[in-house]
């Protein structure tokens, strides 16, 4: 008879763990106060030591070389050098902000919140993701600036010869490959959307066919899209195959870390490695011409 009475765990309502809590005053308020104080002091010291720049008065007739956007937009300006302007300046940032905002609707798992990294492989994914973003972006920039070909030639004596010249940078694919003439002007739309116009369209009315410059389209849009969408996909797929990426959270970790790496490099290169004419130079070689006529 006694065996019929089996101890069962009793379902209790989970009490709020009061002993795990501290009072906001003083424990949090003081932390906030001290951090605010530290920042105030640091910024005052900085403001006393370093003056905000003020150059000559604005003059539309004198263009400094290089002209640069504010530093937090230099990532976009850098991107602009490598592809179609509308894509680099507007479409990609807009899409990316949309993707960013959609993160929590993609990863709906409540587990792992409120903890740094939070999944077993998260640190590894973060480190490698940002490294791939960092190194990949550097490599692509070096390639597209022609420096990679230059280094290979200069340091290792490797010369692709004329047959491989089209691999020197992205635009060489357009200029060095013998594209048939018809491919640079393919009529595709009976009205002018001003989306993808080749030079031949300039000044044509809205009833004209729009012409697609196929090599330009490949170089300005398809190759960059291939890299920007393809490389993250390949990276996440490889991490998935390696067993690192197991959840949607892991996939987002890889994607976001890759973005941080790439974004950091783009901002850095745009800020410190782009000299006159947006040439890729070392930071210590970077000079800005004030653009005063006759003194350039």
């Amino acid at each position, binding site marked *: 008879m006694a065996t019929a009475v089996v101890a069962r765990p009793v379902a209790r309502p989970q009490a709020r763990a009061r002993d*795990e*809590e*501290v*009072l*906001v*005053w*003083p*424990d*949090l*308020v003081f*932390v906030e106060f001290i*951090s*605010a104080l530290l*920042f105030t002091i640091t*910024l005052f010291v*900085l*403001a006393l030591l*370093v*003056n*905000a*720049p*003020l150059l*000559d*008065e*604005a*003059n539309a007739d004198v*263009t400094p070389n290089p*002209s*640069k*956007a504010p530093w*937090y*937009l230099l990532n976009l*300006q850098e991107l*602009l050098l490598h592809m179609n*302007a*509308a894509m680099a*300046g*507007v*479409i990609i940032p807009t899409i990316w902000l949309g993707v960013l*905002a959609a*993160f*929590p*609707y993609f*990863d*709906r798992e*409540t*587990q*792992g*919140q*409120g*903890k*740094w990294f*939070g999944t077993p492989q998260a640190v590894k994914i*973060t480190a490698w993701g940002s490294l791939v973003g960092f190194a990949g972006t550097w490599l692509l920039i070096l390639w597209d600036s022609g420096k990679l070909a230059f280094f290979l030639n200069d340091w290792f004596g490797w010369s692709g010869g004329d047959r491989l010249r089209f691999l020197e940078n992205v635009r060489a694919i357009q200029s060095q490959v013998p594209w048939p003439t018809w491919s640079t002007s393919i009529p595709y739309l009976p009205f002018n*959307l*001003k989306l993808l116009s080749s030079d031949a369209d300039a000044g044509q009315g809205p009833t004209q066919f729009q012409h697609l410059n196929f090599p330009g389209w490949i170089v300005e849009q398809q190759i960059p899209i291939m890299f920007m969408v393809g490389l993250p996909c390949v990276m996440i797929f490889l991490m998935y195959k390696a067993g690192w990426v197991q959840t949607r*959270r892991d996939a*987002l*970790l890889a994607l*976001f870390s890759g973005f941080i790496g790439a974004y950091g490099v783009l901002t850095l290169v745009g800020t410190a490695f782009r000299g006159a004419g947006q040439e890729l130079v070392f930071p210590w070689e970077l000079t800005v011409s004030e653009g005063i006529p006759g003194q350039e």
Partner: protein
Amino acid sequence: MAVEQPARPNLADKIYDKMFHNYVWKSIFRTGYPNTPRNQMLVVATNVFLHLHPTRIHRTHVKITHTYCLGGLSFFMFLGLTITGILLMFYYVPSVDRAYLDMQNIQTNVQFGQLMRNLHRWMAHAMVILVFLHMMRVFYTGAYKPPREFNWVVGVVLLVLTFLLSFTGYLLPWDQLAFWAITVGTNIAGSAPVLGPKSRFWLLGGLQVGPDALIRFYTLHVIGLPLLAAIFMAIHFWRIRRDGGLARPL
């Protein structure tokens, strides 16, 4: 046996009493000095600024490495920028004829003018960096997960507003740096398909950076965008509380 008498209040005690235990003071501050748990909770609950916080918080959340105070510091930068910005507005007129001269005037003739301008600029840079780092912190601690999805979206909006606030302020000194940075920046916006040229024209009030652009950027910078940011910040902070405070392991 002598009965122990309470010590007679000394002068300091009397002054303290007169200052903090009178009718007027108590009409402003309902609670006594927060030196008991009861008063400490009351002071947070009854003060309009402190009541953004709950009265109690999980002990893991006061660890500095949990948040690095990044969100709070972003807000603090916003407040500091508002104060220094108002001071700069006293001396700055957003017209092409005066803007640059006013900048020079602020730097040379106005008491602490250079300091205010420096603070405003470095705080603006700090805010952009802090907001970005805050986003990284929230992502890497998984704090965007349910039920905080929408607050993450509000955060993305605030990130964009921070960039726009900084960008619109960049033109105001009306020097070569400002002029060409905004020219490059608005050219980027102008390259958008279909809407690009129109939105660039709308932003600049013309085909190139000029007097109309300056007044537009100024208006957006000092009232339009800060108002918008304040609204979104209100939603952001409100939602933190509604969604159960800072995220922590379930």
